[in-house]
């Protein structure tokens, strides 16, 4: 079976349980089990090749640009792990089917489990370290889901987050390490990397890469000081613990160290980092395990300890140690998974995992007892079980290891660790199963049904068989896997048998066993001492750290993004000025090429008016109406300046926009406070002043520098001047640019205006649909109101003004192409003509007389502009290509027509519609029942007269 399929099957399998759960728990379990079995069988089909020492490949390029590719390979090491993952996986699936209760969402469970399984298989089959990383992080994520599976348990959530944090961060470090490794080797493919030992070990990046990769491995394999997450992950359902935290996931780190052993091991750095970490972990784990009362915690720390053992062996860097490591991996997987399942059974049946409440179960659960006892003895390293064999090999290796010149320290510490290991194993047997039967178990302990014990039983059989006939049963596997770990070549001599003679290891082993028994006997007093000792509680520290970091993040985030626009804007302006100045300093400023022009009297007066008005706005801005009046001065002066400086179109536009803007702001100000309070402290104002002055100096200085220099190149507007009449049919070049050369800008611009009006309309609707409406309806004016809201004279004047203004609008519209003006200004003038009616005769009266909805006017404007633009298509020309010509109808003189005028009409309509829709929307805020009058003017003697005589309405 292709490696792809083997790797993919668990993922496919992850889909089914979730889908099939409606069909029942058995269906979900079967689907999970069958896909796993299929993958397992597929893997077994490769046995002949693997045991011949061949490597099976499967490769598809995924992201060749980066070197992340779906390259898989299967060698002895990969086979060993894949077999473990799939094989134990099968047993776990079976076990879990009976372990989980009816309330647990089983479909989810199997989905997560198979997701995890797939990720693990992916890790061990990857021939590409980046692909391996993908699977690596995926194990972290899927284990997060599995640990937190029991959503009602806070320990589950916390354990899940802790595991994710620790293993996830290690994984991220590993990413960096792997990228470095791949960089040194020139490829991310393992098969290439493994050939490059010299290059890698001599590289400057070796040490950083090594440390980063080991961070990944150590966190995953719960090595000291990252071991603390593993016990907390035990909040997961026991099948998960058995699978992830004994057999598979925690072994991923070991796998990785084994995988990269050929290129990373053998250096002093490797030895001191890896072997030391392993040794310390082994010792620490074993000691803590002895004093844990929770069965699963005991097993968890024992796992930590055994993982340390294997790590230490890999760290020794010798081939024979590597063989021992491989062998212990196999053995540990068998007995530890069995032990977890046993613990799970005890928990399930007795209703507790607390050793203190157990004991004497041997009588009630004989099958479970047998299984647990054999597995625990193996863990203790008692012959003839498999745990004894690999422990002997370990002890033998430690005896030959020199640590910083010392021959003793490693074997001594290893023996102590083995001693504790034996002790907690014995305790597992003695305090759970042996002793007198109790009558206060929380549950009713009895042996579970076959489905639950068959799995651990099978493993225990393996434990015994490997112990008795290791060379036959485990020999080929160990050889093949160890061969792969050590990177081919001849393995040194070793033998997997029970009796090697009176070796140092045997003495150490005996010492450990006896010592273990002694410790068990002394357990009660030791426990009291242990409990009295102050010791750091990893979870507390971790929680405190994470909590502090979370609170710090909240503090920083809330503090930095405190919602104060003022500060955001200040930072933005200051940053801009600083960067602008930095950019300026980095270049050279050329010499001035233009002369200063002498200003006449008018510019000086205008400048003075502008500056005075501006400064007074700043000084008096708290009086909002006054500020608006002063803004009017500024607008007038700017408009005049445009006129003076040869920009009549701009002057027209500026002044018309000005008026509409002021109307708009007055409409809004009606509802807002009329005064701005003094809020900012003087120092803040000083800071703001400084920022403003600097910004002003920047803007002023920049334009001054620009004004004193000519264009570096002829400008493109020479073309516009030259072609405006010939090609655009107009003599007002600004207008021709607007409707022709850059008509597309104008198209965008009217859309902006149209959208603005729509937004305002939508906002009005939203506000008036909210509780604000009630407030508005009952709102009393802020200031006393004068009478006569629609004065007679105003009404009459605007009635005359309106047609006149529309005439002006028409005039400005039609001449715009050739003289100052155009659709935009015309639109504003027309809009103002209608606004005058609103102001004079009132909102209700004017609205009633408005025949065309403003939405439609805007829409038609945009559509006309667009349609004019598209019209060119039928001429085979691009969008917005204009055309013009001359018509002659006797007796009239010839006159010019231009499609640009049609486009300008679109502009005109859009502007009219937008301005009026915006103002009309704003005006609706003030509407209150009873304010609408049926008459245009409040006071009209003619009407009163007519009412008296009854002649006219």
């Amino acid at each position, binding site marked *: 079976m292709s490696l792809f399929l083997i790797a993919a099957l668990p993922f496919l399998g992850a889909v089914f349980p979730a889908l099939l759960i409606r069909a029942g728990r058995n269906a979900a379990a079967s689907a999970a089990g069958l896909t796993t079995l299929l993958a397992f069988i597929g893997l077994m089909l490769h046995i002949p090749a693997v045991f011949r020492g061949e490597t099976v490949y499967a490769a598809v390029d995924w992201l060749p640009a980066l070197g992340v590719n779906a390259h898989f390979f299967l060698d002895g090491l990969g086979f060993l792990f894949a077999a473990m993952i799939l094989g134990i996986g099968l047993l776990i699936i079976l076990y879990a089917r009976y372990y989980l209760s009816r309330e647990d969402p089983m479909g989810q469970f199997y989905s997560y489990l198979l997701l995890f399984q797939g990720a693990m298989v992916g890790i061990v089959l990857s021939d590409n370290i980046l692909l391996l990383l993908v699977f690596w992080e995926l194990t972290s994520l899927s284990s997060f889901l599995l640990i937190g599976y029991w959503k009602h348990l806070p320990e589950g959530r916390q354990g899940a987050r802790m595991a994710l944090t620790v293993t996830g961060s290690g994984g991220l470090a590993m990413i960096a390490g792997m990228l470095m490794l791949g960089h040194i080797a020139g490829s991310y493919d393992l098969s290439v990397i493994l050939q490059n030992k010299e290059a890698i070990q001599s590289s400057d990046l070796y040490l950083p890469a090594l440390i980063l990769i080991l961070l990944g491995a150590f966190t995953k394999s719960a090595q000291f000081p990252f071991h603390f997450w593993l016990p907390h992950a035990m909040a997961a359902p026991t099948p998960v613990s058995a699978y992830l935290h004994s057999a598979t996931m925690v072994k991923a780190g070991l796998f990785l160290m084994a995988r990269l052993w050929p290129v990373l091991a053998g250096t002093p750095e490797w030895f001191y980092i890896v072997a030391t970490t392993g040794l310390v972990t082994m010792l620490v784990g074993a000691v803590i395990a002895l004093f844990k009362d929770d069965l699963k915690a005991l097993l968890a720390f024992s796992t930590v300890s055994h993982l340390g053992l294997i790590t230490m062996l890999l760290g020794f860097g010798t081939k024979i140690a590597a063989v021992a490591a491989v062998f212990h991996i196999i053995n540990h997987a068998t007995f530890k998974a069995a032990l977890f399942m046993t613990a799970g059974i005890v928990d399930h049946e007795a209703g507790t995992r607390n050793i203190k409440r157990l004991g004497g179960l041997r009588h009630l659960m004989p099958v479970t007892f047998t299984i647990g006892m054999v597995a625990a003895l193996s863990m203790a390293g008692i012959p003839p079980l498999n745990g004894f064999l690999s422990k002997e090999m370990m002890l033998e290796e430690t005896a030959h290891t020199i640590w910083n010149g010392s021959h003793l320290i490693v074997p001594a510490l290893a023996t102590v660790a083995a001693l504790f290991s034996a002790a907690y194993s014995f305790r597992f047997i003695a305090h759970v199963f042996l002793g007198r039967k109790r009558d206060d178990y929380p549950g009713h302990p009895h042996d579970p049904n076959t489905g639950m014990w068959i799995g651990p039983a099978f493993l225990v059989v393996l434990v015994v068989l490997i112990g008795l006939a290791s060379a036959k049963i485990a020999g080929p596997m160990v050889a093949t896997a160890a061969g792969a770990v050590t990177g081919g070549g001849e393995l040194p001599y070793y033998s997997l048998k029970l009796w090697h003679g009176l070796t140092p290891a045997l003495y150490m082993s005996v010492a450990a066993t006896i010592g273990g028994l002694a410790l068990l006997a002394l357990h009660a007093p030791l426990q009291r001492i242990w409990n009295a000792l102050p010791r750091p509680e990893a979870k507390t520290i971790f929680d405190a750290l994470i909590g502090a970091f979370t609170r710090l993040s909240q503090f920083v985030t809330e503090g930095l993004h405190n919602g104060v626009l003022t500060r955001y804007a200040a930072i933005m302006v200051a940053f801009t000025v600083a960067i602008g100045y930095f950019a300026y300093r980095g270049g050279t400023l050329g010499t001035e090429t233009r002369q200063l022009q002498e200003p006449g009297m008018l510019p000086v007066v205008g400048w003075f008016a502008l500056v005075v008005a501006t400064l007074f706005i700043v000084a008096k801005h708290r009086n909002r109406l006054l500020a608006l009046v002063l803004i009017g001065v500024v607008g007038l002066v700017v408009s005049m300046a445009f006129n003076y400086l040869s920009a009549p179109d701009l002057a027209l536009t500026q002044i018309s926009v000005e008026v509409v803007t002021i109307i708009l702001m007055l409409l809004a100000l009606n509802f807002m406070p009329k005064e701005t309070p003094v809020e900012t402290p003087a120092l803040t104002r000083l800071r703001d002043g400084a920022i403003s002055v600097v910004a002003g100096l920047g803007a002023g200085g920049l334009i001054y520098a620009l004004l004193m220099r000519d264009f570096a190149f002829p400008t493109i507007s020479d073309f516009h001047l030259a072609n405006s009449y010939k090609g655009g049919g107009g003599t007002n070049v600004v207008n021709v640019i607007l409707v022709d050369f850059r008509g597309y800008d104008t198209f965008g611009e009217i859309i902006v205006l149209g959208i603005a009006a729509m937004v305002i309309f939508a906002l009005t609707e939203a506000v008036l649909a909210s509780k604000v409406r009630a407030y508005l309806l009952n709102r009393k004016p802020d200031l006393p109101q004068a009478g006569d809201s629609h*004065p007679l004279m105003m009404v009459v004047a605007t009635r005359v003004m309106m047609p006149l203004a529309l005439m002006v609008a028409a005039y400005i519209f039609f001449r715009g192409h050739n003289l100052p003006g155009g659709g935009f200004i015309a639109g504003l003038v027309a809009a103002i003509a209608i606004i005058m009616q609103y102001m004079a005769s009132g909102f209700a009266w004017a609205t009633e007389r408005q025949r065309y909805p403003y939405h439609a006017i805007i829409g038609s404007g945009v559509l006309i502009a667009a349609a004019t633009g598209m019209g060119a298509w039928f001429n085979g020309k691009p969008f917005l290509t204009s055309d013009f010509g001359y018509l002659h109808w006797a007796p009239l003189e010839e006159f010019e027509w231009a499609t640009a005028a049609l486009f300008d009409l679109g502009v005109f309509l859009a502007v009219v519609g937008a301005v009026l829709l915006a103002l009309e929307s704003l005006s609706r805020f003030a509407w209150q029942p009873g304010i609408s009058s049926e008459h245009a003017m409040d006071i009209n003697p003619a009407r009163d007269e007519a009412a008296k005589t009854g002649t006219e309405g």
Partner: protein
Amino acid sequence: MENLFELLVAAFLVIAGIFGIVGSFGLIKLNDPMSRLHAPTKATTLGVGGVLLASMLHAAAFEEHFSYHELMITLFLFLTAPITANFIAKVHIHRQETRETMPEAGGDDHWATHDTPEDEERRHAAHNPPAEE
């Protein structure tokens, strides 16, 4: 002839300038707000008017074409100036005066600026009997 036109144009300009400045000077000099309101009328009428006349004359005499669109400006100013003056006067009446400080409103009760919503209702009731339209 040309000299005459020149003289005329210059005269209009001088007159315009004088009245223009008088208007704005009055704004500063006059000491009560209602009086100040009178000043700008000068600038509006003879000030701008003089300039416009000068401009028209100048165009006709020296630029060989008649120009009368300046009249449009006059038209607008004449239409609008009374209204602005009226409004500013109303602002003053509203803010500085009360019904009591104002002269009699002829045969009527008070001036429109001092109208209250109640007055409005009263008028409405008197002149628009429910039967009407």
